[in-house]
């Protein structure tokens, strides 16, 4: 019972205090804010330890399942190998740690993301159809943006580039702002529900 009540109580008190202190520029409120910030840094650092521990446990368990074992073995070996390199041989420019990062991680990550260009081209060719009015409008704005955003568009006619910027600055901005206001209100409502203990999914179980 206390396992649920104590976290709910802490969330209520801290949520209430932090909301109130934001609007009160009193020295006491400022001191509380600085104190909480220090705690946040400490908690975040502890969370890293917890996360690494959880990652190791997860992959350790998967080593026993033959279908996942090779991937988990690579994950664990890489984790320990890089940690040993960093702890014992330095992390600066020219170190083995940095060389591994530059010659293994960078090419791997960059390659994975670069594949998107090929799939996007193929998907646009197959799926981007002017089936109805909305799709046609989307297609037209995509055309204008694709031409307007490249330097060639500006040299075909400067107005193309201006029109592409207008699309980003007016219709796109209006839609994005609407979404952001909606998300903001949603966040406030959810936060309030969590502070008041109405929303309890974060407790797990």
């Amino acid at each position: 019972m206390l396992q649920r009540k104590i976290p709910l109580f802490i969330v209520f008190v801290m949520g209430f205090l932090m909301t109130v202190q934001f609007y009160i520029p009193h020295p006491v409120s400022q001191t509380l804010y600085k104190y909480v910030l220090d705690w946040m840094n400490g908690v975040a650092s502890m969370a890293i330890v917890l996360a690494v521990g959880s990652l190791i446990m997860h992959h350790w368990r998967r080593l026993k399942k033959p279908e996942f074992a090779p991937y988990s073995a690579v994950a664990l070996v890489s984790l320990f190998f890089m940690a040993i390199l960093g702890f014992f041989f330095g992390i600066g420019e020219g170190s083995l740690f940095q060389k591994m990062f530059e010659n293994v991680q960078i090419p791997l990550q960059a390659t994975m993301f670069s594949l998107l260009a090929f799939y996007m081209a193929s998907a646009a060719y197959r799926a981007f159809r002017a089936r109805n009015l909305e799709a046609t409008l989307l297609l037209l704005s995509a055309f204008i943006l694709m031409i307007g955003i490249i330097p060639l568009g500006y040299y075909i006619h400067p107005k193309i580039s201006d029109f592409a910027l207008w699309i980003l600055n007016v219709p796109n901005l209006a839609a994005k702002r609407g979404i952001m206001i909606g998300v903001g209100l949603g966040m406030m409502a959810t936060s309030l529900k969590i502070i008041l203990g109405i929303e309890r999914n974060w407790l797990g179980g």
Partner: protein
Amino acid sequence: MKIIRVLSTLDRRIIFLLVGLGILIPLLKPLGIPENITPPVRDVYQFIDTLPPGSAILMSVDYDASVLPEVHPMFLSILRHAMLRNVKVIGIALNPAGVGLGVQAFDRISKEFGKKYGEDYVYLGFKPNFVATMLGLGEEIRKVFPTDYYGTPLDSLPMMKEIHSYRDIALVISFSGAGYPGSWVAYAYSRYGQKVAAGVTAVMAADYYPFLQTGQFIGMLGGMKGAAEYEDLVNKLLQEKGYKKPMPFAIKGMDSITVVHLLIIIFIILGNLGYFLQKKEVK
């Protein structure tokens, strides 16, 4: 008609091959299309260009290698610009997978200008929990980063003696392929009034136009295009000052993007022609 039908049902391997060639050929033989500078990029450039020597900016590596071709050239160009103007630079990383990119960039550009670590620039590395980090930097940098990336206490770095919080930093620039720049606005700009700029991927750029319009970002570099524009501006300045022009990665990349954009437009037109032909036949 038959040709259109064939062209509208191209095998995906042909598309992949054409896209591959469209990227590769301009990289090997650049087209040299001049860049037109857009206002959001010019605003960032002018802000840094007019900073008094000795001012400090904070450059946050909020990206990883997956977005390196777009975002890393922005980081390099802005770092070059700042160092050329004798602006002091503090580097941090909020993305753990991007820490090494910061190390690489600072090492490379500082050598180009003969800048000294601790006097002209510092690199503080990664800190978990970006919200606590962004808020903490507004109070006292030393509480968030007691030491730099290499374990040196901040007080023993001459440059950091007079830099304590956002009050001593003229501009924060977040380089990212995710939502970090929005958080810099929410925590650094809203709470502490810190000036913020962003260098983001083309996919994310559309999300940040509201911040640009309200002035919450002083400027923004969007995608390879933004990187190429800034690179062009900095390269011209370097030439003016008698420095050797560095390899124009983003400008070359923009040539590839130009070709691929044109290819995609042709593919879409072909796909739609095939679609309408098919529709006509069914009728």
